[in-house]
């Protein structure tokens, strides 16, 4: 153990007070005069060697000694002494506190949560804070949030810590580390403390510019939860699938939650009414798949609840919500002059093609266009054919000439199973001088296929709208004569159906509510579970985005037409499984969980304060125990 250090060494100047203290003690020492018959005996007593022993001398001026000790204790306390634990004293210390869903896991029935344990650790850190140290508390879940700035105000830190609650979202460590990295540009940060249960992604794509002290908390108890809840369109309605998993203790692992083995009662509710109730046996680490058939012609809300018959450490994953839209055909707008496309669409079942015999709706699921002027209804998926959009006109222009596709992205949903080799195209895209692929990316486009001279097929996903841009006209190419063309159109309808949730549906995970299309520039109220209330405003396109949904439960958006109800579920296999990463792997380094508690310099000032109080009491008692010098 090293010698104690002092944070406020400047206060040592106060030791100069000892000089006036001693001077005033002797100046002010008024000994009561007492006449006695003779000094003969007392002189012998005083000259006795035993009386003059160091101990007796010490006793003679005990009052002075107590006062000196009291002053020393107070000054030493003011000098902020600390016991160095061998670690470098970090002046600025960011503390990342994991408050993801798994941190709500209890260690036993009626036990404390991981977050409570984390709070205890951080509270200890705050208590041990030295005078020249600053802490910054950062919560990390799916994103990172700074709870406090760098401060040594313990009250502020403790208040921020007490306000911290579990967010029922999966953890994402990178954001917290990047936030700490950003702070390190302003402050000298050598070490960052991470307090987590270890339920974080094991591999993290982040270059560590500082030391990371990973303080792993003890694992929670066994847990069972819903890790997946989705539905696929069937002929009669929907096939609904759910997956329930239990925790599994890894072999040879000292940490991690115990293996769950329980009977689990589940209940499926449709619009709040129970439609199925059964039990299933859950083995730790094995997923049980539940399948339900739901016949409906209208939009419905499904809710799945499970109830394990033994201890379940995480209640947030025992419920999942699924919103199923009403079954309907895909609506497609394709101008009459785009005959090849209309022919291809005519062979696809469950497609309502406009313009046709029926009146055009205001919005369709898929729209085709062959000119920059937008005609027809609005759509979230648009296929522009044979022209250069205005925002790309400075980058590329179409000239007459021959070109062919030399490369395409076959993994793109649009081009899956589409053979574009040896297709002759009568349009030739010419890039402007100095323009490269990077410029298209900056404009928000992704190149799906390109010729020798420039891009031919582009994709842009912007503000909830998906645009595909064919810079050549298919009618002036041999594509329409290839089998790939109807496949391309088929892929497009699949994409549109998927965007319109006509093919399948998936439970909405916590984090952010899905983008909603409502009245433009309208303020709406969002009410969530646990009485949460929030207001948000839609943009000029009527898109409502970025609404946080940190808790599992039902959210309702009101203020713009009919109320919109959205159920949000945890749906995270890693959070439910409470999997524990003993080591965090970074690109160049691996960080193992610290086996010992975070070593902080131990402040000692309160011991000196207590010593000062005790000395004061002793002095008071000594002074008051009998009237000064009076004969007994």
């Amino acid at each position, binding site marked *: 153990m090293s010698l104690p250090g002092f944070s406020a060494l400047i206060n040592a100047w106060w030791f100069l007070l000892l000089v006036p203290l001693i001077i005033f003690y002797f100046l002010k020492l008024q000994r009561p005069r007492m006449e*006695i018959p*003779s000094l003969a005996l007392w002189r012998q007593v005083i000259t006795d060697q035993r009386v003059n022993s160091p101990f007796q001398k010490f006793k003679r001026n*005990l009052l002075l000694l107590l006062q000196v000790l009291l002053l020393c204790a107070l000054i030493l306390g003011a000098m902020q002494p600390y016991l160095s634990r061998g670690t470098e004293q970090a002046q600025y210390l960011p503390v990342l506190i994991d408050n993801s869903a798994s941190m709500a896991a209890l260690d036993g029935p009626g036990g404390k949560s991981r977050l409570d344990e984390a709070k205890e650790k951080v509270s200890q850190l705050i208590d041990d804070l030295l005078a020249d140290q600053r802490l910054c508390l950062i919560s990390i879940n799916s994103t990172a949030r700074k709870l406090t700035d760098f401060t040594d105000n313990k009250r502020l830190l403790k208040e921020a810590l007490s306000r911290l609650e579990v967010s029922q979202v999966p953890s994402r460590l990178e954001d917290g580390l990047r936030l700490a990295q950003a702070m390190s540009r302003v402050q000298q940060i050598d070490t960052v403390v991470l307090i987590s249960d270890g339920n974080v992604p094991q591999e993290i794509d982040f270059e560590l510019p500082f030391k990371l002290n990973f303080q792993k908390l003890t694992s929670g108890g066994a847990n069972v939860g819903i890790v997946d809840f989705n539905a696929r369109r069937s002929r009669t309605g929907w096939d609904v699938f759910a997956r329930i998993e239990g925790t599994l203790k890894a072999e040879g692992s000292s940490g991690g939650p115990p293996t769950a083995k329980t009977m689990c009662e589940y209940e499926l509710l449709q619009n709040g009414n129970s439609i199925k109730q059964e039990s299933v046996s859950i083995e730790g680490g094995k997923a049980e798949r539940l399948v339900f058939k739901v016949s409906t012609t209208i939009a419905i809300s499904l809710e799945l609840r499970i109830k394990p018959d033994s201890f379940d450490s995480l209640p947030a994953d025992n419920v999942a919500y699924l919103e199923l839209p009403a079954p309907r055909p895909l609506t497609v707008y394709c101008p009459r002059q785009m005959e090849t496309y209309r022919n291809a669409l005519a062979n696809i079942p469950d497609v309502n093609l406009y313009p046709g015999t029926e009146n055009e709706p205001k919005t369709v699921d898929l729209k085709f266009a062959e000119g920059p002027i937008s005609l027809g209804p609005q759509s979230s998926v648009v296929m522009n054919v044979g022209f250069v959009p205005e925002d790309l006109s400075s980058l590329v222009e179409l000239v007459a000439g021959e070109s062919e596709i030399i490369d395409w992205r076959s993994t793109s949903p649009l081009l899956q199973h589409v053979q574009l080799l040896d297709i002759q195209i009568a349009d030739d895209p010419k890039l402007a001088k100095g323009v490269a692929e990077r410029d298209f990316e900056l404009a928000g486009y992704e190149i799906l296929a390109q010729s020798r001279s420039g891009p031919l097929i582009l994709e842009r996903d912007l503000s909830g709208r998906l645009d595909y841009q064919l810079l050549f006209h298919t009618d002036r190419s041999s594509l329409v004569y290839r089998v790939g063309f109807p496949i391309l159109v088929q892929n497009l309808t699949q994409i549109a159906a998927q965007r319109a949730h006509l093919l399948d549906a998936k439970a909405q995970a916590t984090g952010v509510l899905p983008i909603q299309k409502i009245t433009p520039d309208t303020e709406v109220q969002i009410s969530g579970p646990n009485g949460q209330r929030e207001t948000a405003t839609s943009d000029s396109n009527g898109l409502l985005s970025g609404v946080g949904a940190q808790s599992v439960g039902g959210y309702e958006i009101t203020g713009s037409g009919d109320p919109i109800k959205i159920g949000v579920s945890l749906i995270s296999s890693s959070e439910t499984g409470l999997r524990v990463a003993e080591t965090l792997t970074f690109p160049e380094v691996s960080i193992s969980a610290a086996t010992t508690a975070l070593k902080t310099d131990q402040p000692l000032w309160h011991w000196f304060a207590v010593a000062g109080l005790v000395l004061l009491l002793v002095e008071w008692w000594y002074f008051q125990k009998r009237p000064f010098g009076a*004969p007994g």
Partner: protein
Amino acid sequence: MDSTKQFSSLLENSTLSRVERMRLLPMRRMTNRSRGEHLAGKGGTSTEFNDYRDYSAGDDMRYVDWNIFSRLNRPYVKQYRHEEEMHVMILIDASASMRFGDKFEKARQLAACFAVMGLMNMEKVSLFACQHAGQTPQILSPCTGRMSIKRVLSFLENLPAGGDFPIDMAVEAVLKQHRGRGVCVLLSDFLTFGAMERPMNQLFSAGLEVFGIQILCGLELNPELTGDLRFVDSETGMTLDVSSVGDLIGFYHEHLHGLQEHLAGLCRQRSGRFVCLDSGLPLETLVFDTLKRKGWVQ
């Protein structure tokens, strides 16, 4: 005390009458050659038979035992014990230190008791009181007989206290003026910076058996003090700063006990006696109990 009915302010009449019937019991026969009431070791002319011895020429014929001569036909001289006079010298320490408590009062009362005992037994009694160093002690010249009791008591009643005469020097000063063998009653607190060996030797050399009586008050026997004090010597005015007096009481008792042992040793080695008396105790207890039990008086 009702002085109108009392013979003396020092002693009650009842005490005085009891004291009158008592006598000193010295350990050695230190007497004057003049006749008195104390039997000397050598032959004398008292009525108390001692021994026979052969007649030698020049012996007083009146001491020949004629009955034995008639039976043995040899002259034997009857010897009688010699009764000699004993001088009782009483030295009272009248310095300022004796004013504490009842020390001086007790010293005067005890002196009165010893003087009365001496006078009633036909001893020669002289009194000395030492007050200021360098000055001549107050003296009551040797007197004898019950007729002198009033004079002795009057001397003691009018004796003041105060001064800085240490007892060791007082003894020397007194011995310059004293003549006669016998008993020296030293009434003092014996709290002196000087050594007592020399005065004790001088007393012994002067043929005086020392009756050392140390009179201490409660403040000296059991000082219950605490805190930091500045002691002032009542005789010299010197000061001594003492811190945490309460912690030194144990040492004080050790030194007091050591002083008493030392004084007792000095007296014992010179065929004397020593006793320490508490001035707070009644005179009757001191005289009729303590001193009587110790065999000082009878």
